[in-house]
Every structure is written in C-alpha cells, then in structure tokens.
C-alpha cells in the first residue's frame, strides 16, 4: 500500500510553533532548561525547536544536547541486526536542571526508558519531561507518557510512522506506511 500523509509541511510548522510556545509557558526561566534530542532522529526536531526558540521567540542561547541511547537499549542481541551507534554530544551538565527529552515518534516507550538510563550518566536533573512530534497512542509497552505532544496517531502494530524533515529535495512531511 502506498504511504498515507498524516501531516503536511504547513501543519508541521503550526505544530512546531505551538510546541515552542508550550515549552515557554511551562518554563518561564529558560536558563534552567536543557533540551535533549535523541539520536538518530530526534535531533532534527531538536534543531528546529532550538532554532525557533532562539530566532522567533528570542529566548537567547538555548541549552541543548544530543544523546545516543544505543548502548542502553534493551533489544541488543534480540534482533538479527547489530545496533549502530550515533555520537552523543552532551557538552552540558543536567544537574539540577529541567530536562526535556525530544524525539520524533513515541511508540513502545522503550527508547525513552533507555534515554532515562543514559541520562543518569550526566547528573541528577530536577525533573525530566518528554516532548514528541507524534504520539502513537495505545501502543506503549511501558508506563511512559509524553508531556508535550505534536499530534496523536492511531496506527496498527506493524505500521510504520515516518517523519521526513525538510532538506534540499523534500518538504517536511509525516506519513504512515501500512503493512
């Protein structure tokens, strides 16, 4: 079956602006906030949000980091493929700060569990929140729920929800591939 478009470029733009506003509403003092994008796909959302906050909402320098969770995943050796790592760029301390974990699609919640374990290595944050562009409802394997949601989607177990970020050839788009 051909992919079905869930969110167009225009809708994604509105959602990103709303998410930025929600972040500011929740955190009046942005100097105590660290945005952490998850490798490999959450970092695009992170970059866009940081860009928006710094440029359009004049939030000054937003503190952010990129976190790789490969070595903390619970499915190592469970599948036929080796887990490929990406680089972590965490030049920040999260001790006593409010951390917002940022990822593109929340599905089973296992990546987020791995991210919470990986975050332990960088200090004890004041609190941790979760921001996702797409929340695949009713598919969680763990008791993990997002605090900031771009859009909610109902999809079957084997379906794939993909986020394509803007580059030279494509526009932003979110689509679903039925199995």
């Amino acid at each position, binding site marked *: 079956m051909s992919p079905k478009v869930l969110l167009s470029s225009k809708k994604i733009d509105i959602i990103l602006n709303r998410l930025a506003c929600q972040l500011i509403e929740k955190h009046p003092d942005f100097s105590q906030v660290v945005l952490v994008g998850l490798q490999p796909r959450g970092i695009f959302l992170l970059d866009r949000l940081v860009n928006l906050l710094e440029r359009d909402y004049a939030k000054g320098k937003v503190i952010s980091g990129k976190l790789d969770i490969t*070595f*903390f995943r619970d499915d190592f*050796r469970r599948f036929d*493929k*080796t887990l490929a790592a990406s680089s972590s760029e965490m030049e920040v301390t999260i001790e006593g700060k409010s951390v917002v974990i940022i990822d593109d699609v929340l599905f089973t919640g296992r990546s987020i569990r791995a991210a919470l374990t990986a975050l332990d290595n*960088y200090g004890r944050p004041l609190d941790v929140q979760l921001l996702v562009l797409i929340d695949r409802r009713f598919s969680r394997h763990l008791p993990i729920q997002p605090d900031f949601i771009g859009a909610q989607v109902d999809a079957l177990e084997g379906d794939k929800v993909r986020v394509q970020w803007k580059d030279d050839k494509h526009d932003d788009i979110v689509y679903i591939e039925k199995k």
Partner: protein
Amino acid sequence: MKKLSVDHLLGIKYLNEDDIHLIFETADHFKEVINRPIKKVPSLRDITIANLFFENSTRTKLSFELAEKRLSADVINFSASQSSVSKGETLIDTVNNILAMKVDVVVMRHPNPGAALFLSQNVDACIINAGDGTHEHPSQALLDAYSIKEKLGDLKGKRIAIVGDILHSRVALSNIFALKMLGAEVKLCGPKSLIPRHIQSLGVSVSTDLMETLKWCDAVNMLRVQNERMDLNYFPTTREYAQLYGLNLKKLERIKKEIVILHPGPINRGVEITSDVADSKNAIILDQVENGVAIRMAVIYLLVAKLNIPQV
C-alpha cells in the same frame, strides 16, 4: 547496520577492510563513553567473559578486563601459573570446563601460534585472540592503526615503519596486515637476524638502516626486543643494538621533521627507545593504552552482537 564478517577475532588476516572501519567507528563511540563521568554502559549485562592468560600480560589483560567491565559483562580471570594446566590438563579440557560454567566469550593469550584458531574449531564459544605466540595480536594492531589514524588522518598512502624485533613479534605481523589493508605503506627495520626471510612477500619493504627509515616514515612503531623468546644470540650486545636501532632524541633531531612514535609496551627504556623520546609530545604511547580500551570494547560489542539470544 553492518556486521562483522567473522564470529571470532583470531587475527587481522581473517578480517576485511569494512570490518576494520566498523570497529573504528564503534570505538569512536566507546571512546566518548569512557570519557564520561560515569564510564559504563549496560549493553553486555547478560554476558559472561573468561580471560584465559596462559602467558604473562599486564596491559592487554587489564585493558580487556576494563573493556568488559565498562560494557557491564561479568568477568572471570584465569592465569596458567595458578591452574590445573600445570597438572597436565589439555587446552580443550581446560576451556570446556570453563565453558560448562556458561561462559559466552573467551579471551585467550597463549604461547603457541594458532592456539586461538584451534580453540575456535573445537569449542563452542566466541574466541578473541589476545596474542598467540609469535603469530598475531589483532587487538593491538587495531589500536595501533586507530591511534595512528587519530593523529594522521586516513591511513591511505601514509608511511609507517616498524622497527626492532620483527622475528619474535606478533604485534608486527598483525600490524602489517592491518596497515596494508588500510592502504598504508609499511617498512620494516631491524638487524638482519631479527627480520624473517621472505617477509617482503607480504608487500612490505625492508631496511637495516634506522636513519633512512626514520627519514622515510610518517609514524614509527618501536618494538620491544623479546629476550624471553630468544633461543640464541641474535645481536652481539644490547649496547650495540641500542646504538644502531634505539630511538633517541639526537636521531629524531637529525631527520628534521615530526613523526608519530608508537610503542606497544612494555618499554625497555634505553634499549629500543630512550626515556626523553618515550615521554616526548610526539610519542602517543599513553594514547595507545586509552584507545586500547575503546577498541576492545568495540570488538567485544560487535562480536557479542552476533550471538543472538535463542528464541524461547
């Protein structure tokens, strides 16, 4: 995601270029991990690794043990001097007894060339060769190449010299395989008596003139004179060897260029390398030790990734 083409690390000659690049990429990530405040990841928490050292070792054993622990594996250590090997037990029996305790990976150093290959054919576990006699020492060659690459960039076309006791060195052989595979030019230098005949067939050049070799190379790997393996006198005196093939500051100044200096350790200070050179800024001997842990974490991680958990 790419996988290693092999199930064991027996020697560099069983790997291909893609394998080496995959190990280097993975090691980059582990190097970042071991420089964090908390230097541990939980990937191998359900794996048990046995370190079997039938021959003395400080660096390699510690490095492997640290790499295993940083990956959260359970580790058991064994050295031949305190074991039943001295009571006459065979290698396969020893290892099978250890495997009966549910060990997944065996890291082995053994004085006999081919011991790791022999073991991989006869027991059911992932084998990592930590040096087999005068044959290969693959993890050392990987970390040497990785350290040179860190300093000089891509190894393609780079000139690397290996100086000293080539005849008794497993490091030299593994280094030749790894460096050639990565596209570097390799020159061996040492007294004729310590260079194996027909070694040129591996695609390396040979010289007996240290100054000429130093002028030629971008990096030099100074090997230790392995007195413990010498059954007869290969050179007249240690003093003469140090004069002809030892690296000192005077010789480095005479070549009028900067070269990277490696040494696999342990150093015989004043024989193959003087203290002022070993402690100079161009010597990356301690970088090699740090990179050793990252490389060994990468090798273990990638090999264990191939041990799929059986579906229950």
